[in-house]
């Protein structure tokens, strides 16, 4: 199992060739329409005052998505960012803030962050969600943030993500717990004990 990382933590990570040269920094993560995998990254320049780059990094050019850098094989493999984000929108524009619902129609919460698999996989494994009060009951004072696995069959309707009912049966409180939850260890049971 590769390392899990939150997509927002990938922003500002350097893009480094296997030759050791830094090419750019990651600006945002782009994923496909079904929110199943990462399809690339939009980039900013390396300097303090340099703005967004016209080039984007497609996932095919990524050697490995690591904890400290995004490694690429060839610095010339960048493509036009406008062409890349024409059909697939960057995370910040589409997924963050989207409502998460179950198939039965009950509200889970809104997406705060997207959990992706590092290494060479690039799968979207789950979401960090600001849970609605009905989904995770608790003190009214602070809102609960939980990690919800993506599940096999997620459907996107407009701005809403609809999860299968059994995907939200187990949730995790933190990223290591979510890692073991995705790895097969059941997390905490949501709701009252049987």
């Amino acid at each position, binding site marked *: 199992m590769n390392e899990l990382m939150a997509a927002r933590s990938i922003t500002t990570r350097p893009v480094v060739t296997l*030759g050791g040269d830094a090419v750019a920094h990651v600006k945002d993560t782009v994923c496909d329409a079904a929110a199943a995998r990462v399809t690339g990254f939009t980039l900013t320049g390396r300097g303090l005052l340099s703005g967004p780059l016209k080039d984007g990094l497609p996932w095919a050019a990524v050697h490995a998505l690591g904890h400290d850098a995004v*490694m690429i094989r060839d610095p010339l493999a960048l493509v036009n960012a406008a062409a890349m984000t024409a059909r697939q929108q960057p995370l910040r524009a589409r997924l963050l803030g989207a409502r998460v619902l179950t198939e039965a129609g009950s509200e889970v919460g809104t997406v705060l962050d997207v959990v992706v698999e590092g290494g060479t996989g690039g799968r979207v494994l789950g979401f960090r969600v600001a849970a609605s009060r009905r989904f995770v009951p608790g003190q009214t004072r602070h809102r609960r943030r939980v990690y919800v696995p993506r599940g096999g069959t997620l459907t996107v309707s407009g701005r809403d993500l609809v999860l299968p009912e059994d995907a939200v049966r187990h949730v995790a409180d933190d990223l290591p717990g979510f890692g073991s939850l995705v790895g097969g260890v059941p997390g905490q049971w949501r709701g009252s004990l049987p």
Partner: protein
Amino acid sequence: MLFTEVRGLPVVPSAAGAGPLGTVASLDVDVAGRGVRHVRLRGGRLRRETALAWEAVEAIGPSTVRVRSTARPGPAPAGHDLLGHRVLTEGGTSHGTVLDVAFDPVTGRLLAVFTTRGEVTPGRLMGLGDHALVVRTA
């Protein structure tokens, strides 16, 4: 021999009576060839850095670097000093920074790279750029 031992040694031509050319500032490494490529030297506090090809070096002793009397230092090529450089694995995780490099003073071949997170054999080196030294995951 270690890079930190060579740094600061005077570079002296082997001809009798010749004065030193300068002191060793750093050694340039060819990562693909796994050896030392240039010796960078500094003539004085305000002088610019110059470089000598490794072939011009006759012997490296404990107190001097002896070079051929015909050797003339040229302008320093673009390169990155290994010492203190950041190390990344192929998978994009940090592997500390380079503390020291062991090399063979006769052939100039690298023997080992010591990082803050352990030793790296020269066979694992992949590339040295402006951001990091990239090593293969063991």
